[in-house]
């Protein structure tokens, strides 16, 4: 068989390879996030992870100095409300990630200035903001599914019990009308 007759097949193989490569790269963030969310338990409630060790293999490159709490969210039935008491004298933050792994919101303990957090995560389509209250923060999620991630720094091992207790005051639930 001549080289000429192979050419279209080789070209088709390369075009297909490029298409498969681009499609998988494009879809990868969604796939990775879906897999991570599936491992994190029931949506719209908070899950408190234990201390990170070499046995912690849920998400890559975890920090052993942080306590992680997660609230996978599903906004298909409306907004959710996240309430948290900020632990004193240590780094704390809540961050929101959409279904494509993008970090679209973050607040830390210093920004909250010691005040409790009252955060409403709105659906992508919600056109009206729920009841405004003093100090209440609204943020619109780009996707219906995503994750709220709380980080609390264990700045001193001897404070572990107090830090752990403080972060367990947080709550994440569908917004009651």
């Amino acid at each position, binding site marked *: *068989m001549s080289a000429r007759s192979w050419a279209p*097949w080789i070209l*088709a*193989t*390369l*075009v*297909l*390879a*490029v*298409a*498969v*490569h*681009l*499609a*998988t*790269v*494009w879809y*990868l*963030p969604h796939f*990775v*996030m879906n897999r*991570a969310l599936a491992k994190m338990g029931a949506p719209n409630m908070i899950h408190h992870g234990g201390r*990170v*060790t*070499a*046995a*912690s*293999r849920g*998400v*890559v*490159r*975890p*920090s*052993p*100095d942080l306590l992680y709490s997660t609230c996978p969210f599903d906004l298909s039935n409306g907004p959710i409300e996240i309430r948290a008491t900020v632990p004193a004298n240590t*780094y704390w*933050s809540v*961050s929101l*990630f959409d279904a*494509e*792994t*993008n*970090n*679209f919101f*973050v607040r*830390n303990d*210093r920004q909250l200035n010691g005040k409790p957090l009252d955060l409403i995560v709105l659906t992508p389509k919600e056109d009206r903001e729920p009841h405004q209250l003093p100090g209440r923060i609204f943020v619109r999620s780009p996707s219906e599914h995503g*994750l709220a*991630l709380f980080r609390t*720094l264990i*700045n*001193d091992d001897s404070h572990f019990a107090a830090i752990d207790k403080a972060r367990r005051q947080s709550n994440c639930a569908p917004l009651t009308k």
Partner: protein
Amino acid sequence: MNTALKILATFVIGVALGLFATWFFVFRGAMPGGVSDGPWKTNLSVGSASGDMATRASVAVHGLLALNRSETVYYTAVSDTGGEALDGRCDYLIAGRDPAARWWSITAYAEDDFLIPNPQNRYSISKNSVLHEAGGGFTASVSRKPTGNNVIPVADAPFSLTLRLYNPDPRVVADPAHAALLTIQKVACP
């Protein structure tokens, strides 16, 4: 060769090549768009939605759920200050002063991006845990035979180090290639 076989071969080889390219560039490859500061590399796109398709795939695989850089700057070192790959069979000395941030930590990770098991259950040093010298600087060793306080235990295999700067100084955020970070000197190898 009949046409059906050619179509089948085109399909199988095309899909395999495409998947291989994704594995090679995204899973095995380094993150695109990075900047270096000595042995420390960071990527300005981490945690933001502004990265291109390839960067976002790479961040999803290697830095899932990372924060944006005004909150945390993540630097990773896969080689020492001399440019040689970090290898757990060698001993290293990390030296310098506290980087400009509210809080920092350095953590060792195995090639699978998870923590390295060790009898002490120690995986990192941080601003709070490290013992400083009188002048304010510090040194810490990275070794498979850890001794003393300022130490990060590793295993007999290649590893990487992640330096986290929480609430970094705005100058670090603006110019992460010229932050005053820490050196990683190779001390001894078998």
